[in-house]
């Protein structure tokens, strides 16, 4: 494709964007010279925490990439096996520290599977509301960070964090803490909504559409963004499925799999929402999927805030102290903003779980990092990593 063709191609829009092939003649296959080995991380401004990639470069091109983990391995599973079921709840907040509410829900759901506790209707609604708010927070921040990695320093991240604060205010007045909510309990939620919370939430959710519009106008059609992200880091659907990729990354590759639809956990079958799918599985698709998912979340939120019933918020059979599930095991999973977050618990009838395992979507989504980066430039490796959406607390646990 010549340069003039590139220039005359229609500008991509939110719903109808197309992939542009890289201009011919830019192949850098026959670059000579020695290979260069670079350790990117664990201290690197674009690795989203203490993540390390050992990259082998031929010129600027990545020929090998091995992720190195463990720089934030905090032994969550070992600690959880030495403590009670309830005491692990605040630790789950610190797994994926941007999304404490969904972590809480996944853990509570698994314990409910294990014991048969049933959260009441109102608690289910609160869970949906908080989980979708969490999705908004996570995707908003991720987009800010991703654009920061691409070189859009400051502004998008600043706008994203301005919006994040509004939701964190909601979380704080609900649970008492901005980030580490520790809000859900086995069989329900810890505290009822404070007075005026629903109205405040409706206001924030109502304003979110405008924020997304502005954000999209700000950057989604930006030519630099388009040039840097389209056709970069392509992930084919078969590889994605075989590598257990989940979440927006899988859907960007065009696989229609969302646990909110597939498992219908909680009360998600009451909400009509669409699952946005990508066509190309590149970085731009992954960016766009998150924007579109936020719009669906706003829809779910609007409905949930409208329909939430009055009533109790916790199963009367639930116990705070002396909680001992009978022996057995359970695996529960939910669609957290990064993918499938699962908890696998084995109980031997004691107050502590015998085995406590977190299925971390961030870690497993990195399985294909090397495949996506091979043949790309090292600068692209940074944004490919950014588009995977990892949080190190969950990768290393």
């Amino acid at each position, binding site marked *: 494709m010549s340069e003039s063709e590139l*220039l005359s191609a229609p*500008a991509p829009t939110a719903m109808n964007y197309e992939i542009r092939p890289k201009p011919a003649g830019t192949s850098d296959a026959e670059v000579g010279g020695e290979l260069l080995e670079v350790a990117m991380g664990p201290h690197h401004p674009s690795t989203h925490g203490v993540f390390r990639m050992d990259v082998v470069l031929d010129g600027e091109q990545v020929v090998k990439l091995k992720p190195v983990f463990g720089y934030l391995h905090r032994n969550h599973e070992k600690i959880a096996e030495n*403590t*009670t079921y*309830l*005491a*692990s*709840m*605040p*630790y789950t907040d610190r797994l994926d520290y941007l999304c404490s509410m969904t972590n809480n829900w996944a853990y509570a759901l698994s314990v409910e599977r294990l014991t048969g506790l049933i959260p009441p209707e109102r608690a289910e609604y609160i869970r949906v509301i908080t989980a979708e708010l969490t999705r908004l927070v996570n995707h908003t921040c991720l987009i800010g960070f991703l654009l920061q990695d691409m070189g859009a320093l400051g*502004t998008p991240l600043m*706008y994203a964090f*301005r919006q994040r*604060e509004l939701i964190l*205010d909601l979380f*704080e*007045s*609900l*649970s*008492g*803490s901005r980030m*580490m909510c*520790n809000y859900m309990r086995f069989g329900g939620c*810890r*505290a009822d909504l*404070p007075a005026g919370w629903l109205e405040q939430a409706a206001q924030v959710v109502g*304003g979110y559409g405008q924020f997304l519009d*502005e954000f999209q*106008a*700000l*950057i*989604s*059609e*930006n*030519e*630099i*963004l*388009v040039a840097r992200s389209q056709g970069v880091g392509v992930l084919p659907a078969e590889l994605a499925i075989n590598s257990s990729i989940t979440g927006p990354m899988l859907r960007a590759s065009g696989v229609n799999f969302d646990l909110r639809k597939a498992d219908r956990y909680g009360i998600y079958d009451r909400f009509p929402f669409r699952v946005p799918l990508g066509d190309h599985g590149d970085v731009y698709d992954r960016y766009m999927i998150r924007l579109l998912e936020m719009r669906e979340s706003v829809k779910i939120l609007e409905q949930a805030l409208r329909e939430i019933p009055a009533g109790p918020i916790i199963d009367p059979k639930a116990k*705070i*102290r002396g909680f001992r599930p009978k022996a057995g095991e359970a695996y529960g999973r939910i669609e957290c903003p990064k993918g499938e977050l699962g908890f696998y618990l084995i109980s031997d009838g004691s107050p502590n779980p015998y085995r406590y395992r977190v299925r971390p979507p961030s870690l497993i989504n990195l399985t294909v990092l090397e495949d996506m980066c091979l043949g790309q430039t090292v600068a692209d490796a940074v944004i490919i990593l950014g588009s995977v959406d990892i949080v190190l607390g969950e990768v290393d646990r």
Partner: protein
Amino acid sequence: MLGEGIIKGMAETARNFLGSYHDAARLTTVEFPEDKIPAKESARNFPFLVHDGEDAMQGLRCVACQICEKECPPKCIFIIKDTNKKPDYVGKLQFQPKVFDIDVSVCMSCQICVEVCPFDAIKMDTDFELGGSDRFGGLLLNKRRLAKPNSYYHTIHPTEAAEVDGRLAAEKAKVEAKAKADAEAKAKAAAAAAAAKAAAQTTPPVVASTPAAVVTPAK
């Protein structure tokens, strides 16, 4: 046209910049030490111990039952129970903690101690300005530093504090009613026994049956 997207983005930035002059939603900075965001009612940071009455050490609601110590996930509470009971602020004998330390350099602000406390003795504070250069002395809070009056609790968590006060008052009324009822029943029984004794001396014995007063305290 190439560059249209960039121009659009620039326009958006400009709109935001100009908007920050008249729209509060676009000018979100809170100049912290001078202005503070008012603490939310449910906000939590570190625990404190509620005391009633004037003397903080005497009025502690904590009875050193050590439940919070056991349930604390990061195990940052350390309690040594006093060996003998001491009078509390109304003069009732009560176990009290000899040592009650919270290591806030470990505390994860999870609020589980508050949830498990059966005596409403430990609550969450909203104060966050605890930073300092002294790690070992400054961050291990002893019970003198932890004790704060109930009125303070009312100022930071008004709704919750009112609820707790109501519950405590109801419990107290229940206990008092029960004590009163017990005392009455005892007195009646004693009177009946005395009457029966007196009666037994003169007339053939009559079984005096005085059912214990049944009291259903108001909730």
